[in-house]
């Protein structure tokens, strides 16, 4: 093999491994979201992550990848829809010339799992009350919206890419976009029954399994090494071999600072070191450092993570105060932390690292120029205007035509039994053959067929006992 072929082999190996790590983040979302919601909806909420990854994958194959990374203009890609075998196997050729160091197929795999993550975020704020078909319909619409914005920021020639917007792995593209659609959905759905009292005060609706939420958070943290470090799309970046190791390091530092920041800020502000707020802190920090991870110094990653966690802890109750019911905290954790991370990159980007990555310039702190910060802010405003309005508009239309919220009796009974016919934990509600609380198997007709044990013979007292 030539040197060039070896490089492509190493790049492809890393990118496919990273893509698989990111795919596993669906498991993280499944556990996080199921853990932070009620038992009666557990199967629905966990299962939705399989459903939406299926929707995202097929839509991304048909149109998304072409719109995002096919050769095109500043606004959208125009080639590479349902891509051919040749297009998927070629390296750095039309229609996927954007991927210079890996085959089109590896590029597709790495990008589709990002679309899946962004779509997973949407439903966190819509949990426990949306109709099942909405996942199919809005999942497809959102995947297209996501693909357009990722073209603007990530594809060579995208209009925000031309300005030099720095979003290394998608604080804006993936997390902020997901949160914008989540916000639109939460507003249109309205709060869950009982979330707000008659006086308008928010009630706590505790999640049903905090160890699930912890496991989900750790899986997301694990997957995030693929998410951020894999976004190098290769093993050498701007002449620095192994740059992805540095990206993984800043990612971990931010998450660590976020976990500690989350629990400490919760302790100070909410008066209790709430476990779920520690988890929100980790995730907010990871969201924020996602834009910054390739551009900033280690100390800045720590600062970005800590501030993101503080923002999330304070913002979760604030979102509630606006009357918005966001069961997982997606708006605060993915939205506001995404905004912070995108802006923080414009503040703390190191000029030498910006040159290595080859996007944008040094941040305000190093250059004294507000240019990069301004570009970051422009990107946030443009994405908010587009993604929020299209999400709100399409969900509003579906709501007017068919209604996107389940009936009150469905919500009260729980989506598991009402929408899917069976609870996630049936034995908590009803006897199951051989399950907790019954050994009778009554509904199988066995209730009366268990043989009765014979009455034991009266035992004679042994002689030894009588003797003492």
């Amino acid at each position, binding site marked *: 093999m030539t040197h060039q072929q070896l490089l492509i082999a190493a790049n492809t190996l890393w990118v496919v491994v990273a893509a698989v790590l990111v795919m596993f983040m669906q498991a993280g979302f499944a556990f996080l979201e199921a853990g932070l919601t009620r038992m009666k909806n557990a199967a629905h909420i966990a299962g939705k992550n399989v459903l939406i990854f299926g929707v995202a994958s097929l839509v991304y194959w048909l149109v998304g990848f072409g719109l995002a990374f096919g050769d095109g203009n500043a606004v959208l890609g125009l080639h590479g829809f349902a891509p051919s075998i040749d297009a998927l196997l070629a390296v750095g050729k039309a229609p996927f010339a954007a991927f210079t160091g890996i085959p089109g197929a590896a590029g597709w795999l790495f990008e589709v799992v990002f679309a899946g993550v962004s779509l997973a975020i949407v439903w966190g704020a819509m949990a426990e009350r949306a109709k099942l078909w909405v996942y199919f319909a809005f999942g497809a619409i959102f995947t297209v919206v996501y693909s357009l914005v990722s073209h603007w920021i990530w594809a060579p020639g995208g209009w925000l890419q031309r300005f030099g917007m720095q979003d290394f792995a998608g604080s804006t593209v993936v997390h902020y976009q997901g949160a914008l659609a989540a916000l639109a959905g939460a507003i249109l759905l309205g709060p869950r029954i009982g979330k707000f009292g008659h006086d308008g005060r928010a009630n706590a609706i505790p999640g049903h399994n905090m160890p699930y939420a912890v496991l989900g958070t750790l899986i997301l943290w694990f997957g995030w090494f693929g998410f951020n470090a894999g976004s190098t799309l290769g093993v050498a970046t701007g002449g620095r071999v192994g740059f992805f190791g540095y990206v993984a390091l800043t990612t971990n530092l931010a998450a660590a600072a976020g976990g500690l920041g989350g629990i400490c800020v919760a302790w100070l502000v909410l008066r209790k070191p709430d476990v779920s707020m520690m988890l929100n802190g980790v995730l907010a920090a990871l969201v924020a450092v996602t834009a910054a991870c390739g551009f900033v110094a280690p100390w800045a990653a720590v600062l970005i993570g800590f501030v993101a966690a503080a923002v999330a802890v304070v913002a979760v109750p604030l979102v509630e105060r606006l009357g918005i019911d966001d069961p997982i905290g997606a708006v605060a954790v993915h939205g506001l932390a995404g905004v912070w991370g995108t802006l923080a990159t414009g503040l703390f980007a190191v000029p030498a690292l910006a040159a290595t990555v080859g996007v944008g310039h040094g941040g305000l702190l190093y250059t004294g120029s507000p240019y990069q910060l301004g570009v970051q802010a422009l990107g946030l405003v443009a994405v908010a205007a587009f993604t929020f309005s299209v999400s709100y508009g399409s969900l509003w239309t579906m709501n007017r035509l068919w209604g996107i919220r389940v009936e009150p009796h469905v919500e009260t009974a729980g989506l598991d039994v009402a929408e899917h*016919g069976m609870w996630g934990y049936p034995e908590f509600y009803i006897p199951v053959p051989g399950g907790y609380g019954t050994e009778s198997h009554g509904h199988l007709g066995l209730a009366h067929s268990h043989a009765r044990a014979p009455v034991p013979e009266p035992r004679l007292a042994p002689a030894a006992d009588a003797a003492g």
Partner: protein
Amino acid sequence: MVKVEAVVVRERVETVIDAVEEETGHVGVTVVEAIGHGSERGVTHEYRGRTFESRFLPKALLTFVVDDALAEQVVAAIADAARTGHSSGDGLCWMSPIADVVHHRTGERLS
């Protein structure tokens, strides 16, 4: 004293207790999670394409120990608040006389 017991659907538990409190002034209740069935003999669920007949449905058993004079009012309040408008499954309510009631903390006899 009279013991009033009621089987109600679980989502009505607090509605019923609130109604008793508001309409009769009686405060105090014991709630037991229960399963059971009436004349409909349970309900049918679905699991992996098969029907799953559950003989039992989730209910709650509420026990109120009330003054003789309040008993009728309490029963009326419970029945009103437990009615869901569904065709079956709202549960029932009954009362029975009790011989003696001892208050643990004070040792006082309530009747």
